[in-house]
C-alpha cells in the first residue's frame, strides 16, 4: 500500500461543483499546493467548507479571486476585501457557523454522527434563521440561513446541528508516511484532522514523507485510514504570517 502521488494527479478528479473540506486557520496549516493545483485545473462552482477563506491572493483567496467558489461555509471572513465584495454582490453564498460548531460538524461527518444538539447559538439569530446567506446583486439580503430545530434538554435550550461531509478533504501536515498517517506541527493542526475525517476522498500534502513504519504509532495525530492520497508539499511554498502583534502581551 502506497498512497503517495503528485498534486496534479491527486486533484485530477475534483470536478465542477465538488464540495471540499479544507484545513487551516487563517493562513496557518493551509494546503497551499493543493489549492494551487485545483486553481490550475480550472474547475468552477466549488462548495468549500473551511474556517476562513484565506486573504486576497493567498490560501483559498486564490480560488475565490478566480471566481471558482460558489459557496463557503466558514466562521469568519475577516477583512478579506474580495470575499466581502463577492458576498455583498450575490456572487458568493456564505453559510456562517460558529467556529466550534463548524469543527464539531466536520468531526461528526467523519464519525458517522448525522446530527447533534449544542447549546451554542441558542437564543440568537443562528437558531431563529436570521443570518444572511445570500445577497441580491443590489446588496439586499436574498436568503437567510435556515432556522435550527430547537429543544430543551436538561433545562437548557439547544439547537440541532447537522454533520458535514464533503467529496474531498484537503489538508496540510508536517509529516506523512506512505500509508497516510499524519503528524501536524503546532497550531497548524487546527481543522486539518477534522477536514480529513469529513472528506470521502482525503488528500494530504505534507512537508516531508517518510516510509511506513517510521512514525511512532503513539504519536500519529491522524491515522491513515482517513487519508487516501499523499502529496509532497513543495519546499518552495512559503508559510505566511497573517498578522503581527503590535503590542507585547
Amino acid at each position, binding site marked *: 500500500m502506497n498512497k503517495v502521488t503528485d498534486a496534479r494527479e491527486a486533484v485530477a478528479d475534483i470536478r465542477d461543483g465538488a464540495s471540499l473540506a479544507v484545513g487551516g486557520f487563517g493562513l496557518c496549516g493551509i494546503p497551499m499546493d493543493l489549492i494551487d493545483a485545483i486553481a490550475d485545473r480550472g474547475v468552477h462552482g466549488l462548495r468549500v467548507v473551511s474556517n476562513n477563506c484565506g486573504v486576497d491572493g493567498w490560501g483559498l483567496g486564490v480560488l475565490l479571486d478566480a471566481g471558482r467558489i460558489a459557496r463557503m461555509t466558514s466562521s469568519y471572513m475577516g477583512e478579506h476585501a474580495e470575499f466581502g465584495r463577492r458576498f*455583498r454582490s450575490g456572487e458568493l453564498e456564505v453559510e456562517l457557523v460558529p467556529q466550534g460548531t463548524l469543527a464539531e460538524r466536520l468531526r461528526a461527518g467523519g464519525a458517522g454522527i448525522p446530527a447533534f444538539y449544542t447549546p451554542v447559538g441558542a437564543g*440568537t*439569530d*443562528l437558531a431563529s434563521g436570521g443570518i444572511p446567506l445570500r445577497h441580491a446583486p443590489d446588496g439586499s439580503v436574498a436568503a437567510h440561513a435556515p432556522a435550527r430545530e430547537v429543544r430543551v434538554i436538561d433545562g437548557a435550550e439547544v439547537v440541532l446541528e447537522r454533520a458535514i461531509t464533503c467529496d474531498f478533504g484537503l489538508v496540510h501536515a508536517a509529516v506523512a508516511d506512505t500509508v497516510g498517517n499524519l503528524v501536524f506541527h503546532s497550531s497548524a493542526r487546527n481543522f486539518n484532522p477534522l477536514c480529513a475525517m469529513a472528506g470521502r476522498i482525503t488528500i494530504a500534502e505534507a512537508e516531508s514523507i517518510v516510509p511506513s513504519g517510521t512514525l511512532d504509532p503513539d504519536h500519529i495525530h491522524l491515522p491513515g485510514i482517513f487519508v487516501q492520497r499523499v502529496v509532497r508539499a513543495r519546499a518552495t511554498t512559503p508559510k505566511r504570517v497573517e498578522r503581527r502583534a503590535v*503590542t507585547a*502581551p
Partner: protein
Amino acid sequence: MTGTSGAKADARKRIAARGAQELREGMYVNLGIGIPTSVPSFLDPDVSVVLHSENGLLGIGGFPAPEDEDPDTINAGKEPVTLAAGAAVFDSALSFAMVRGGHLDLALLGGMQVSATGDLANWRTAGKLIKGMGGAMDIVRGARRVVILMEHTAQDGGAKLVRHCTLPLTGKGVVDRVITELGVFDITGQGFVLRELAPGTTADEVRGRTDAPVTVDMRRPWGAAWN
C-alpha cells in the same frame, strides 16, 4: 471622559488593568480580541494562569522576537506567539470541546452591547458587512464565567449597557460581569448591580450613561484584589 484618543486609551488601559484582577492562580482563561488582548501585561507576575487560544493551543506565552516567529504557532488573532512551559496543542474539535464542555474557568471578551439579563452582542452591527462570529458564540456559551471588558458607551455616546440588546446576539443570558472605565457590574436576577465604582466618577454619572436600571451594591473599592 472626552472623546480624545488619549482619554480613550486611558479608559481602555483602566479596563484592562481591572480585568486582569479577574484572573486567579491556576485558572484556564480565554482572552478575546480587543481590550482583553492587553490584559496579560497587567497581570500580577505571581499569578500563574493558562491561556487558551481557540485555534488549538493551551498555554500561550508572550510574543516572539521577529527572528523567532513560527508561522505554525499563532493565536486566535492570527499573530505569532510562543508556547509557555506546560503548553499543549490540539485540533479545533478538542479545543471547542474544552470551551463547550465547561472546562474554561473564565473568558474575558469585548462587547458592543450587554443587556440587563446578560445577553451579549459583539459579532455584528446592522449596517456593516458581516465578518463572521468566529468562536465567540461558542465561548460565551461554554466558559464557566464570562466577563465583558468594554468602554461604557459607544463612539457616538450611545449606551452599551442596555435594557435589551438591539444588535444581533452572540449569546443569550451568558454574561456574568461587565467591566468598563466607570465601574464593575454584575448581572443578577435584578439586572445590573454596580459592585465597584472607578475613581473620579459617581453612581449618578454611571446611571446617566447606562440605558437600564443600575442597583448599587458595592462590595469593595475599585480594583481591590479578589480573594
